[in-house]
């Protein structure tokens, strides 16, 4: 059974994660209702002939995955696994708008082709001419975690040396309005709040693309080791402590051996109570938050994975992730646990260790 190391990362988000200065400085997004990713310079990564049909999510994915692959010096990939909650929603919207607007006449294929959920993984494979294993998960708040579990299965089964894993979601204008209408996203005027201080109904939507090259061997570029990932569909709040404890004991760890817990608080008063419950059992761990800086999206735990990997390698905790909390452990950071759920579903734990 092989181990799983993170050997390269590329992260496009609302913060300067792509430029790699996010640990020094954070951009205040508390005045925004919709949090958009900072656009990298696409043209230095994608030839103009291929860029013209790509939506934001595809472009961000190509760029982020290129950076991750380069950092890991992974010439050959044995798998490309992408998780995406809403898929290529800009092109789905585009095709729907035309189909309904023109009453099914004069439709062109581009938006339809690009709207297919596996566009991103297919495009990455096409760019790299990579004929290996290629999967796409579209499982709401558990899309990225599903991709990670698939990756772990590949290493456990000794099926791979290097694989690319990613999480990506993009904004689409009308879709954002729809989710506002049913209260999943906050209404325009309600957004402007610090979500860690003040909870309300709904979340502030974000977007991003985070890609990781996972390898079975440690290298100079290694950030951290992924020990285990678990995803369950549904969990009552009362069962959350035993869910976490069982997971830790399966991995032969005790509560106080977890140095940092990264929580997915997104300010939604209906569901943030799960995070309260999780916080209450970790008395000695440092608690960190990130969605107040990135917004909430279905694959946002890929950002938490980026943060955990960087903390483990650099042994630094950026102050802007602490919220109102304090660093509880100041010695070496050995183990980090990420807990996430979306609207009370897709509860996931990602456990990482320093190398």
């Amino acid at each position: 059974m092989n181990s799983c190391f993170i050997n390269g990362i590329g992260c496009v988000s609302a913060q300067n994660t792509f430029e790699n200065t996010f640990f020094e400085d954070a951009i205040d997004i508390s005045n925004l209702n919709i949090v958009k990713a900072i656009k990298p310079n696409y043209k230095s990564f994608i030839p103009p002939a291929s860029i013209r049909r790509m939506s934001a999510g595809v472009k961000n994915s190509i760029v982020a995955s290129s950076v991750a692959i380069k950092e890991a010096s992974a010439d050959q990939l044995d798998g490309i696994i992408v998780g995406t909650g809403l898929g290529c929603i800009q092109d789905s919207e585009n095709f729907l708008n035309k189909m309904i607007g023109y009453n099914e006449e004069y439709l062109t294929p581009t938006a339809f082709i690009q709207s297919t959920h596996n566009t991103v993984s297919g495009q990455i494979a096409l760019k790299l001419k990579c004929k290996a294993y290629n999967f796409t998960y579209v499982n709401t708040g558990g899309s990225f975690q599903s991709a990670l579990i698939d990756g772990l299965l590949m290493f456990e089964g000794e099926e791979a040396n290097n694989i690319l894993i990613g999480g990506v979601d993009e904004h689409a204008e009308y879709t954002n309005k729809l989710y506002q209408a049913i209260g999943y996203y906050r209404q325009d005027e309600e957004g402007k709040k610090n979500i860690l201080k003040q909870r309300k109904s709904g979340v502030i939507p974000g977007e991003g693309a985070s890609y990781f090259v996972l390898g079975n061997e440690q290298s100079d570029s290694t950030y951290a080791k992924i020990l285990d990932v678990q995803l369950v569909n549904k969990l009552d709040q009362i069962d959350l402590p035993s869910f976490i404890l069982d997971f830790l004991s399966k991995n032969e760890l005790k509560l106080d051996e977890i140095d940092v817990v990264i929580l997915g608080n997104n300010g939604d008063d209906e569901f943030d109570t799960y995070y309260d419950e999780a916080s209450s059992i970790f008395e000695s761990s440092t608690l960190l938050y990130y969605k107040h800086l990135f917004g909430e999206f279905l694959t946002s735990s890929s950002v938490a994975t980026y943060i955990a990997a960087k903390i483990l390698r650099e042994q630094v905790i950026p102050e802007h992730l602490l919220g109102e909390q304090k660093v509880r452990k100041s010695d070496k950071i050995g183990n980090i646990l990420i807990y996430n759920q979306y609207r009370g579903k897709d509860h996931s734990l990602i456990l990482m260790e320093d190398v």
Partner: protein
Amino acid sequence: MDRGVAISGMGIVSAIGMNAKENFEALKKGQHGISEVELVDTILKENILVGEIKKSNQELEQILKLPTPNSFSRSSMLGMIAIKEAFRDAEIQVKDNTSMAFVNSTTVGGMDMVEKFYDSFLTDKKNQHYISVNDAGSNTHLMADYFNIKGFVTTISTACSSAANAIMLGARLIKSGRAEKVVVGGMDGLCKFTLNGFNTLMLQSNGFNKPFDDERVGLNLGEGAAYLILESQSSLQKRDKTPLAYLTGYANANDAYHQTASSEQGEGAFLAMKKAFEVAGIQPEQVDYINAHGTATPNNDLSEGRALLNFFENKIPDFSSTKPFTGHTLAAAASIEAVFSILALRENIIYPNLNFKTKMKEFDLTPQIEIKKKEVNTVLSNSFGFGGNCSSLIFEK
């Protein structure tokens, strides 16, 4: 000896039947399910034929005894009917499901509902509950709730190979010890979005689809769902259950050639077959029947035909495409054809490739055109999709 992963139950709905028995009877009689569009409100009605299940959403709700209003899409309802049958077949009670894993797959998800109310969502509150199934995974979650499945639940979407990949992941979950029982499969209902999408690509035929025929002009889209219960040996032994068949080989590869078209030589298909045989640990000549992808588009059948000829070194076993019966059911295709493959193993029958008349100019390849009784011990099932996604599955007695 490693017998792969056991299959302890299966369920299916397609244009040729609402359960496995009805599907098998239609296959035996050569009775196809291709017709004009009746249930989707589209201007394409006159130009295309489809494999439509002639049951309205209301009828599906009644079959499942769903309360209204609910947020189930057509795809989900078709999926739930098939899963119910699979549970019955595997003799699993709904209350036993908490430890079960569920790997679903779909390309349509809740699109049929979203497209219906897209324009009026913001002004008409009464249908807004369907907004929540806009993402594919939410459909899976609602289905998991219906069957009380609380453990590992996920959704795969890799175009027309989706269900093959769901079956493959399920097998790997069991082999790794992460699951004892997994429901795996795919579902897709017909909707305007897909009909129009394939129309823009000029991939649909206005007549009956003719896989591997020189005069084939395109596919007929279809709808349906099929699921298998995959189960570990220890779980089967515990409850003293005999499996239907075994899944012994599986693989996925990417053609990395074009977004929607297959490469001329079908390299992705070749790789997927090669890896699947490696996993199964058997030789290609042991195959008794191939259920081909055979969509009847000019491109697919040429590419698949070449890949088959290369892989089997010109000695291709009996093969046919069953898409002339069901239409191309997209994410459900591979699981529908998995059920057909298992039925072939159990009943020792292989199915005709309907509508075939003339061999393709490019090579000497004739599919099985009559129903044939023979000893069937090993079946290969291929599924390929947009984004270069190619998957092969091997089933054994």
